[in-house]
Every structure is written in C-alpha cells, then in structure tokens.
C-alpha cells in the first residue's frame, strides 16, 4: 500500500476542525486533530506528522510562539490558518517559520492545494535542492541551467535582479514568499525597511510574466503579505 501522509490539524473551533478533517480524509490523508497548543506540541513529537495545519487563534497559547517552539526541533511544513485583515499576523507567522497560510473562510479545494504544495516541498527538500533542471508552470519555463525564462515559447528578457527574484520564487514555488524574505534573499541581509523595492521590482516582473493583468495566473500578489508563484 502506498504511504499516505499524516496531517496534524490544530484548530479549536469544532465545526472548522470537522470540515478540515473530512476534506483531508476524503483525499486519503491520515489525520490527527487536536484543539490546543499543548496537545499540538506533544502530538507533533509523538506522531511525527508530514504537515501541520495550525490555527493562530488558539485558546491556550499564541500561535506565533507555537511555531517558534516547533521550529526549534522539527521541520515539517506548517500551514497557518487566520482571519482576513490580520496580514501582520500572517507575515509574523511566516517570518517565524511557517510555510504558508490559509485565510478564513476557505474552501476545501484551497485547503487541499496548500497541503499538496507543502508535501511537494517536503519531497523536494529530501531529494536535494532544486538548482538544476527546469521549472514549468502554464506557459512559463524557467531553465535553471541556462538561466533563461521563456513564456509561451518566447524568451523573456529579465534583468539580473529580476532573475534572482524568479529563482527565489521557483525555489518556493506554490508557497507564499514574504516581502522580507525576497528582500534578504535577493539583496542580501541587513535591509529591513526597503520592501518598497521588492514591490516595485515584482510589479515590473509581473508585467513581463503575466500577459493579461486582468487575470494573473502565475505570479499572484498576496496583498500585505507577499507573492506566490503558482506551481499547478
């Protein structure tokens, strides 16, 4: 029998927990669900989950703290769940070591897509990094050997900075990348308040990679948080 990944669901609201569990089990995932930070930490240690879905509004502890504590000893992808309008919290969670987020209310399709991305990353991390070969999504092909980018067969001319940004996005394909992450990976550490540059460079990059600004398909803006390069 094929290995089915284990997802740890940490959510204190029973109806939401129920629907997450139902959505995941119907897709063949094994699920462990808990309703507080304390059991989340103990189950993370005893069950060794492949993915953790963590609600940030837990009754017993601050979600960001839980992420920090988990990240001290374990690496499985963490997907945080939070309400809209809490962009600051999401960014803090991501910068504290979370991998992705879901905004309430979300549908089951969105939930499953995030889990798939998380599992793909897990697989990629254990297979060694993605610095060679090519990345394909939609009509976009990024050739990591020749450092070229083509869109629907046409070569896209990128500046060195834009190419470095594409590389960061490709390495994190499917996941959200915060402004801060892009800033430090592309321009190096030590810059903290210049995220405007990231925004302007990304806007220019999107003009090159998204032919129809009315319907962005590949490079999505997560307002107030960062960017996401789609991978499916």
């Amino acid at each position, binding site marked *: 029998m094929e290995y089915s990944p284990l997802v740890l669901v940490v959510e204190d609201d029973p109806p939401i927990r129920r629907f997450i569990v139902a959505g995941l089990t119907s897709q063949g995932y094994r699920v462990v669900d808990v309703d507080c930070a304390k059991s989340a930490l103990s189950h993370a240690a005893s069950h060794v989950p492949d993915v953790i879905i963590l609600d940030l509004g837990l009754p017993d502890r601050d979600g960001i703290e839980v992420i920090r504590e988990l990240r001290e000893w374990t690496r499985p992808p963490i997907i945080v769940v939070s309400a809209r309008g809490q962009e600051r919290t999401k960014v803090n969670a991501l910068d504290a070591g979370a991998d992705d987020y879901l905004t309430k209310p979300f549908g089951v399709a969105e939930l499953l897509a995030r889990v798939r991305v998380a599992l793909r990353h897990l697989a990629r991390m254990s297979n060694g990094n993605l610095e060679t070969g090519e990345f394909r999504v939609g009509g976009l092909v990024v050739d990591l050997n020749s450092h070229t980018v083509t869109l629907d067969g046409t070569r896209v001319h990128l*500046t060195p900075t834009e190419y470095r940004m594409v590389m960061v996005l490709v390495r994190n394909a499917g996941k959200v990348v915060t402004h801060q992450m892009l800033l430090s990976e592309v*321009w190096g550490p030590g*810059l903290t308040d210049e995220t405007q540059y990231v*925004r302007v460079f990304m806007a220019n990059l999107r003009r090159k990679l998204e032919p129809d*600004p*009315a319907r962005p398909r590949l490079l999505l803006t997560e307002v*107030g948080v960062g960017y996401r390069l789609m991978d499916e």
Partner: protein
Amino acid sequence: MLSLGTTVEAGDLLSRLPRNVRRSAVLLLSLGAATGLALLFRHAGITESSIVLLYLLSVVIASVMTDRATGIGASLIAVVLFNFLFTEPRFTFVVSDPQYLVTFPVMLTVAVISSELTARIRRQAKEAEHRELLTNHLYESSRSLLGARGQEDVLRAAVGHLSGLTDRPVLCIVDDGPASLRFYGIDGFTHDERLVLPVREVLGQPDAGRAVLVNVGDTSFVLAPVVARGRTLAVIAVDTAADGLPQATSEPIRALAVQLALALDREEMSRREQNARIEVERERLRSDLLQSISHDLRSPLAAIVGSASTLVSEQTLSAVTRDDLACSIRDDARWLTGLVENLLSLTRAEERAVRFRGSVEVFDDVLAAALRRVERIHETHQVAVDVADEPVLVRMDCGLIEQLIINLLENVIQHTPAGTAVRLSIDRQGHDVVLVVEDDGPGLSEAALTHAFERFYTERLIPDSRRGMGLGLAICRSIAEAHSGTIAVSNGPGGGARFEVRLPVEPAVDPHGPRGEGF
C-alpha cells in the same frame, strides 16, 4: 553737532559702567562742574544767589542721571561745598553771617525735594515703559493663544510667552489621563518629576484660587492654577530661582493664566462639540445598520437554514437537488462573508480617518488581488485592465483599498447585465493616481448619480439581481477619504457608469534598487 556726539558717547560710556562707579562719576562731574563754574562766577563778581541756583541745577542733573539716594547725597554735598567754598569765612565750615542759617536749610530742602520729584518722574516713566512692554506681551500672547488650534498648540504658545515674560524656566502642566500629567516646556526644560505631586494636588482642587509656592530641592516653584468656570484646567509652574518672585513678574503670570484658561476652555468645548457630533453620527449609522442588517441578513440566513435542514432530514433527494442545496448554502454564506468584510472595513476606515499609517504598495498589485477575489466577474462580464507603464506606489491600508476595488466590481456585477464590458485603468496624473472603472452598461439615473455614495441608498436596475444593502459605494467613499483621496461617479460618453478614484501617490523609489541593479 560735534559736542552732541561727544555727549552721547559720554552718556553711553556712563551707562556701561557698574552702578556704584556710575553714581560716583555723576556726583563728581555734576558737582565738580557746578563748583568750577561757581568759582568763575565769584571771580566775575556775580552774586551768591546765582551760585546757589547753580548747585541746585547740578543736584537736579545728578538725580535725573542716577537715583533718589544719589540725589539726596548730592543735595547734602552741594550745601557743604557751598558753605566751605563760598561763605565767609571761606574754607571753613564756620558761618559768620546769620542769614546763611536760612539759606542752607532752604537750599537743602529745595535740593532734596527736586531730586525726590525727579526720581519719582523717572520711576513713573520706567513703570509706564514696563507696563507698555507687558501690554505688548499680553497682546501678543492673547493673539497667539487665540490663533492656536488644539490643546497642545495652545499650551506650547503659552509656555513660549511665559518664558519670554518672566525670563525664567517655566512649565505648563495638564492632566493627561487618570495617572499621568503632561508637561509642556521649552529650551530643554520639559519635565520635573518633583513637581508631579504638588501639581496633582493643585489640579485636584476644583477651583484652586491662589498660586502656591512649593520648595523643590534648592529652588522653589510658583504653581499658578489656570481656572475656567470653576475647574482647574492646567497649572503654570515658574521657577523662582530662589530669590522669590517680584511683583513685576507675578502680575503677567496671572494675566497669562487668565488668557490660557479662556483658550483651554474654548478648546475643550470645541472638542466636546466635535465628539458629540461624531457620536450622533455613529449612533445614526449604528441604528441604520441594525435596521438594514435585521432586514437583509434574515433572508440569506433563512435560506441557509432551510437548505441545510433539508439536506439533513431528507434522505431521498436526488444528487442534483443535493448539489443545488449545497451550492446555495455556499453562495449565501459567501455573500454574508462579503457583508461582514464590508462592515469591518467601514469601522476600520473610520478609525483610519483619525489615525492613518498603512504601508506603501504598488497600486496594480492590489488591483490584481482584488480582481482575484471577484473571479466570478469573468463568467458574466468582459474585463479589460490597463495599468500604467511604471508601477505607481500608494501609501494605503491595503485591505481597505482592496475592499474599495471589490465593491466597485461588485457594483458593476450587480447593476449591469451579463455581457457588459468593464474597463479598469490605472493612470498617474501629477501627484495623484487615478483608478477608473467604467462599463458600457445602462449608466446611472439622475437620482443615483447624486446619491450613489450615500449609505443605504439602493437602486435595483436589473431584475432578480443579488440583494444589496446600499453600503458598498458608501464604504468606497469612506475608504477613499480615509486615504486623503476622492471618489466620483458620472456617466461616461458611451452612457455607461464611470467611477473615478483619486489617491495621492508616494514618491517613486530608486529604479536601481537599494544596492543598485548590478551589485
């Protein structure tokens, strides 16, 4: 002309000397000159009465140039000199002629009285000058206190004038919440922890009448209460610099305290009035909202409850029906979610209007994100987007601007038939970014053009369209205004609706990035 110049110079020189030296110099010069002239008179055979007058003149000159005490001193010396030098037997203090027993006392009395009078005139002139200065100061301070807007400005102006008037370290202190005082000062002296307790005590008295003197460390402060209509609004603290506070200084403090009281009272009244207005407005909004909510939330909730309970209790439904019911639950819940988002935006926009920070975002990023949240517009409408060549930066609360764009798009969906073309464009015009959302639908009626941005104004143009609360566009306006922007609606040349949002842009960043493009 030359002699006048010399006199002025001599006067200047005199006034620059220390006080005692100056007095002696004046005495010496005036009496010396009188004596010299008198000796000449005597030689010329002019009578003694002229010499007496000459001495009296020198006494008057001395008292004009110095003070009362010196004037009296000059009077005595003049009499003694006259006796010694000019009365027989000369060069003795002995008097042979009994008529001098009348001359000396009269001469002395006249000298003393004239020096006394001169001193009094001088003093009065000085006081008048001081008064004029004070009046000018108070005129200036009342003008600037009247011109100041807001409690903080008023207190800053008051501190400035007080420090100019008294030439001492001063503070103005007001109550700032239950457990803290706010200090206003200038020139680096802006706080003194030792004053907290005594000031609190003065502020605590409902009608603190007189100023009190408190000793702190090696100096003492005068604490003058600022009282308006039986309430102590603030305290003025003046450092007495250990020498006490002369009358000349405490008077202007009292006068300024009165002006300050009036200004602070006026500020507080206008603040209260404004709060009351805001409160009334909020109250009205709240009751309008409640009314709308109770009316408009009931039907989707009823639909959800109905569909869900049907799914639970009826086991024999066809797959198609079950699907239908589930989809309607999902759609109603989504609609309710949108409504909640909008209500939250409204409160947030109102808060923002007071205190706006936000982050700097690329405008078309936010437009793209908003479009993604109204994906379904592509199913019914033809959407075209035209973004500016250069990314435009705007300081914003991105959640709110996203909501603004969503509401404009929802408005298009709600009020135009399927197949309508929608064009969105972002353009930079001077210091503004202009977002235009225009469609080739039926446009707005006269009434709708006037009332479109009013709360709870709704107009159903498309039969069977989704229900609306008439909040979407009102929220758009609140959001635009919270960003110091504007929103306007008109019917475009083709007859369709044309919404135009203007927001101030942020200066562009260096196109080469924080460390240059090719670092």
